[in-house]
């Protein structure tokens, strides 16, 4: 297009008389200018990038753009080839494993293919399209006052025609009809609503999940636990030994069982809240693993300092003092699970947690 246009400063000529658009002798550029004029666009500056076609410079630009398009095509072909023939199936290995480079190779080739097209088009736009600066009127703001008045009157008239204002009974009846209908439309969402009941107050250690009998502790693989199987200064994650006790069905139940050293256990016993008295079994102490802040597993047990850190929001709990929070955003101590050892020598929970585990909620003290 640009080459057809006679070169020249695009300063809009003041046209004395409107252009005769249908005159066959009018040039195309004159038509374009006329179109712009009619659309409220004024040309401030317009010049073809290469007024003389076929210069060395222009050929150079054309070659550059072509290069990027061709590069893009080659990379896209490479992408197809790599997609089909590059070994892709996962295998263990170091950086010399071919399949590890499948994704990087695809990404690089796709990136080059897309980028090549992009750079090509942009170079075309920047280097070959005419330099232009145009000015268009905005016509923003309110509509014409006459229009506004006419439309306003029409609207009010339509309102009058319905007669809602004159017939208050209809208005009320419609309101009565529509409001319940709107509510009725919301009802299906009610299918999502479930009564929490006491679910938040019980865990898998509640005897109700074990036919009323106390629940034993188990590992994630289902094996029961004897007290001597936990190292001094060690910790283990335990679950209620009920069907599905270690699954997400009982996501509120994971418990951290810690074997304290003698002096620490003594300290913990002395510090125990009234509620937690007798919950320890010898030097073993069990706390809910679900953080009382927002429920992450608080499981970073520091066996020398006896702190328990939650990795999500850095709440820190003091294990030998009822797991009270000593730092961070958590406000409440981790609930302690009362444990003992049965006649067969396995650890079990003498009762469920005595307070709701996990994050706080409005009615958590109303149990």
């Amino acid at each position: 297009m640009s080459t057809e246009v006679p070169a020249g400063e695009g300063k809009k000529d003041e046209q004395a008389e409107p252009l005769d658009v249908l005159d066959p002798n009018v040039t195309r550029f004159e038509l374009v200018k006329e179109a712009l004029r009619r659309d409220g666009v004024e040309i401030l500056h317009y010049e073809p990038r290469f007024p003389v076609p076929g210069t060395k410079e222009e050929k150079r630009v054309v070659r550059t753009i072509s290069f990027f398009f061709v590069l893009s095509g080659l990379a896209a072909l490479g992408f197809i080839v790599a997609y089909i023939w590059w070994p892709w199936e996962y295998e263990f290995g170091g950086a010399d494993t071919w399949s590890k480079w499948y994704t990087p190779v695809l990404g690089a080739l796709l990136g080059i293919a897309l980028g090549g097209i992009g750079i090509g088009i942009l170079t075309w736009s920047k280097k070959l399209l005419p330099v232009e600066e145009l000015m268009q009127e905005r016509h923003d703001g309110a509509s014409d006052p006459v229009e506004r008045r006419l439309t306003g009157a029409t609207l009010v008239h339509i309102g009058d025609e319905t007669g809602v204002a004159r017939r208050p009974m209809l208005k009320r009846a419609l309101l009565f009809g529509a409001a319940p209908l709107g509510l009725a439309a919301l009802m299906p969402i009610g299918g999502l609503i479930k009564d929490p009941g006491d679910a938040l107050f019980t865990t898998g250690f509640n005897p109700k999940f074990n036919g009323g009998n106390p629940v034993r502790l188990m590992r994630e693989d289902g094996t029961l636990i004897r007290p001597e199987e936990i190292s001094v200064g060690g910790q283990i994650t335990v679950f209620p030994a009920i069907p599905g006790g270690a699954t997400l069905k009982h996501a509120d139940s994971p418990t951290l069982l810690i074997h304290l050293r003698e002096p620490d256990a003594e300290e913990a016993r002395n510090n125990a809240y009234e509620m937690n008295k007798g919950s320890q079994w010898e030097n073993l102490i069990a706390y809910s693993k679900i953080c009382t802040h927002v429920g992450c597993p608080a499981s970073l047990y520091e066996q020398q300092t006896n702190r328990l850190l939650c990795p999500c929001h850095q709440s820190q709990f003091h294990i030998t003092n009822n797991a009270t929070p000593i730092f961070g955003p958590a406000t409440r101590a981790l609930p302690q699970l009362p444990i003992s050892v049965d006649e067969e020598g396995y650890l079990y929970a003498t009762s469920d947690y005595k307070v709701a585990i996990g994050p706080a909620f409005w009615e958590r003290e109303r149990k």
Partner: protein
Amino acid sequence: MARFIAALAFVGATYTAFSPGIYADEPTDSALTLDEQRGKEIFDQSCISCHGPDAQGVEDRGPSLIGVGSAAVEFQVNTGRMPMARQEAQALRKPPMFTPEQAAFLGAYIQAIGGGPEVPEDVDLDNLEGADVANGGTLFRVNCSSCHAFSTGGGALSSGKFAPDLHPASAVEIYQAMLSGPQNMPVFADNQLTPDQKRDLIAYIKYIQDDQAQGGWDLGAFGPSTEGLAIFLVGIVALALATLWIAGKS
């Protein structure tokens, strides 16, 4: 050397690294073997200032080593954590002062006078073929990833302490660390995690460390934080430069 001893004394005052007396046995009276004798010589030269004669510990300096076992000694010495160089929130891994052989002598000596956990001889940690990597992964996620992170790259603990990166640790060192619970790490003795489970666990750690990241550079495997950094430093910066080029006058 004097400065070094002074530093040791200074450090020992606040440092309690070992779980004291967990595995305390009656000290053996039998005469030491040659290896144990060598260990004692090294001990009397380099460790005695903090850990005291016969490793009984020195109050406010260093804990008793009776009952810590050879696993703890070899772990601490071979990873360069012992002897400590200066006071820190926790002992750092550094080039070891002693050769593995010397560390073994030291371990043998401490084992001889106090007993304690040792790496069982029938566990093959040099060749992890045949270990159940998937089981190891499960154990890793339950027991280890909360501190050492999913990528084994380590993580922060309270008040400046941290769980170290596991990449430099050898299979035997990981085993010893689980046995002895160095510093704030909980103890995972062989009665809690069986030697086979430990081997699975180590095999998993080594697997994910030796497996080249799938799908490009892992950005340090820190999770979403470095990904967020990358989208601004790479994505937004590259495209902002592109906008400058696109809108620039030519």
